[in-house]
């Protein structure tokens, strides 16, 4: 009661109003703090997109006031500025494709391609993507040469056969070793071989006794 007597009602209302506004401001401030908090585990690895070596004039690159619009004549020499040159499609990629909220790009870059790109081969191939794919279009190259180091070098018509004919998962990136016995891929050929009747004669394996791997239809008899 004594307090009420010391603070006039009008001042009390003002005080309450001030307290409410202060609380709101404090809440806003705390909320903004929460928005700034993030980073968590990767906090020690620095900002998402380090700008500390950039020129002081933001207008060199940015246009407007939203930070999202870059100048039309914006150019950034990633190699010269960072020591990490970008080749192929990476040279044309948007900055935020790599420098984004997912985490520090240095962490992912050190993991090679799989740091940023999905391993569509699901761990079944090596992690040296660039030895089979171009960096520009991701088109594979040199498959026949690489296949030459396996137990089944691609010779004859096999060298001009689509991968999917033997590796059924090839179209979706799953390359598992295909069984090397001829019938695994040539079952239909075997069933159609009626002159002579291969199945009837029990000729269901060791096809290479008579057929050259260059083309199935050319049988050459062992003299």
């Amino acid at each position, binding site marked *: 009661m004594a307090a009420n007597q010391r603070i006039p009602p009008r001042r009390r209302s003002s005080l309450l109003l001030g307290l409410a506004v202060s609380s709101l401001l404090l809440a806003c401030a705390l909320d*903004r703090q929460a*928005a*700034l908090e*993030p*980073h*968590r585990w990767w906090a020690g690895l620095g*900002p998402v997109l380090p700008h*500390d*070596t*950039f020129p002081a*004039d933001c207008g*060199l690159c940015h246009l407007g006031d939203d930070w999202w619009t870059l100048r039309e004549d914006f*150019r950034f*020499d990633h190699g*010269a500025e960072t020591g990490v040159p970008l080749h192929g*499609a990476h040279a*044309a990629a948007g900055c935020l494709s790599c420098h984004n909220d*997912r*985490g520090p790009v*240095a*962490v992912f870059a*050190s*993991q090679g391609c799989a740091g940023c790109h*999905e391993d*569509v081969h*699901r*761990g*079944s191939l*090596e*992690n040296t993507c660039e030895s089979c794919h*171009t960096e520009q*279009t991701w*088109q594979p190259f040199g498959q026949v*040469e690489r296949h030459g*180091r*396996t*137990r089944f*070098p691609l*010779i*004859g*018509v096999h*060298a*001009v056969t*689509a991968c999917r004919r033997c590796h*059924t*998962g090839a*179209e*979706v990136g799953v390359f*598992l070793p295909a*069984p090397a*016995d001829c019938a695994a891929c040539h079952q*239909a050929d075997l069933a159609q071989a009626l002159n002579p009747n291969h199945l009837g004669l029990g000729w269901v394996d060791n096809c*290479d006794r008579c057929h*050259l791997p*260059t*083309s199935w*239809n050319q049988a*050459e008899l*062992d*003299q």
Partner: protein
Amino acid sequence: MAWAMHRLGPGPGPAPGALRLLALWLLAACPGRLWASASPGTGVLQEQAPLPVRVVQSSPGGLLEIDRGAADGVRLGDRVLLMPRGAGTLEGRVIEVQERSAGVEMLGSTAAIAVGTRGEVWLPAAAPGQVEPQDAAPEPATDASPAAPPGAAPQAPKPAWKRIDEWREGQPLLSGLERVAPEDRPRSVRGRVWVGVDQIVTDLEGRGDGFYRLGSNLWVDNPFGAGGSLEWQGDLSYRRTLLPDQDDDELGLLRVERLAYRLGGTRQQADAYAFGRFLQHVPALGLLDGAEWVRRSPGGDRYGASLGFLPQPDPQLESAEDLALAGFYEWNRDETEELSARIAYQKTFHNWSADRDLVVLEGRYLPRRGWKAFLTGLIDLYTSGDELKSGLELTQARLSVWRDFSHQGVRFTAYSQRFPQIDGDLVPVLSLVQLADQRTERASVDLWTDLFPHARLLAGGGGWVDEEDDGADANVGLELSDLWSERDRLQLGAFLTQGKFTDVLGWRAALDLPLAGGQARLAYEYAWQDVVGFLDENDDLPQQRLSLSQDWFTAEGWSLTMRADWVLFDDDQGLWLGFFVQKTF
């Protein structure tokens, strides 16, 4: 002294007494500097220091604007050196000064100076705003910092930029800038669209192949205002294989490879969710039609779980037959994730009946320097319901260990593959005999060493074992680079393979040539093939291959790849033509 003369020159200036006081102060405060200026071989530049600048605006009349002004110590008449790419060092003078910018008049043409060109303004070393040179490692030489032309002033080491405010935790971009949350960002779309054609023609009657596709890949960032991303990848394709004495094998389909909504998993949000068709966090667990949750713990480890159907790894990606439930744990030693290990378990139900129990083990050690290692292992657990196999079986394993030294490198690779006994069609369909016996194991080592600049020796070898045979391979080659132009490469090599049905001995040459707007590759290979099991006079088959491919790409995101592989084998020949055009946006 130039700075002193500029400031203390004729005209209204400080009184003579003040000049004396200033001179005494300079003498007392800067003896080292005066001593340095008096030392031989120094001169004017010892009293000045460069301030890095950028060209902000360029006008045809020769007047440039730079991003530094009076607040940085720039004053009228200061000397400016600009280093446009590939045009040496150009000189100018400051003729106009604003607080944060300055106008520069060049002494020569400004045609080569584009916005963004780097340069220096030479200021008195003690000018306000001047940053202190630091003992930073020298920057790698680039086109932007060419050697000074004859007659130009020698360049002092460039000072490193100094942060005004040190970056602190919670400030994702520039110091002092507030983070823009993913949900506050404008919606954006990026992706690519492509058309591909592969056509194989042979002179073998009735044998050929065609594969045609039109595909797209889209990422929509923040599509619904919640900060997530929507991913699509799919294609419309048609393939037709011509087989002698058989009906053509043809198939046309619309395939959805990815259609997923992902949320979280950022620096700010430890939980990540994915819904739809996507590749799981542990790729070996496969594509999933369902949902996945992954959490990153404060210590950096991750764990998660998923539920959904596994599409079969065939062209159609048929789904809804194999229901999978999986969980994983990923350990990371520290923030860099250089050393990590994962274990995952997946239980599959084929048509609602218990089927596969799969354990995935993965490990990687990828330091920036030193030895690196990568390991993947798939272990199938067989229960009493499995008729053919029991216990544990390592059905797939791959190990790579490698290291690149400054002038040498070595890589060791090993893999093992067996086929698990499962009811679903998640692996190639095999007969029971094949399922029991089929296995492939291979180990190889590859080495390279620089013989001298632009010449590298390559060598490799390996061995393989399967259920009934074994064999080996070896190769040696020489790689020459930068012969005619930067980044060109010529490889010459010989190879030997002991295969299952064929032994091969041959040589090849390949030339990679960067061209304007693209790259070309020309390769030729000649091989003698000894077909195992034939008589000596009927088992040698020479084979030649000639391949040519070329990539073109533009800054607008268009790319075109064309390739032609011609194979001449025995008395027959085949030609593989490929065409791929893609637009990235």
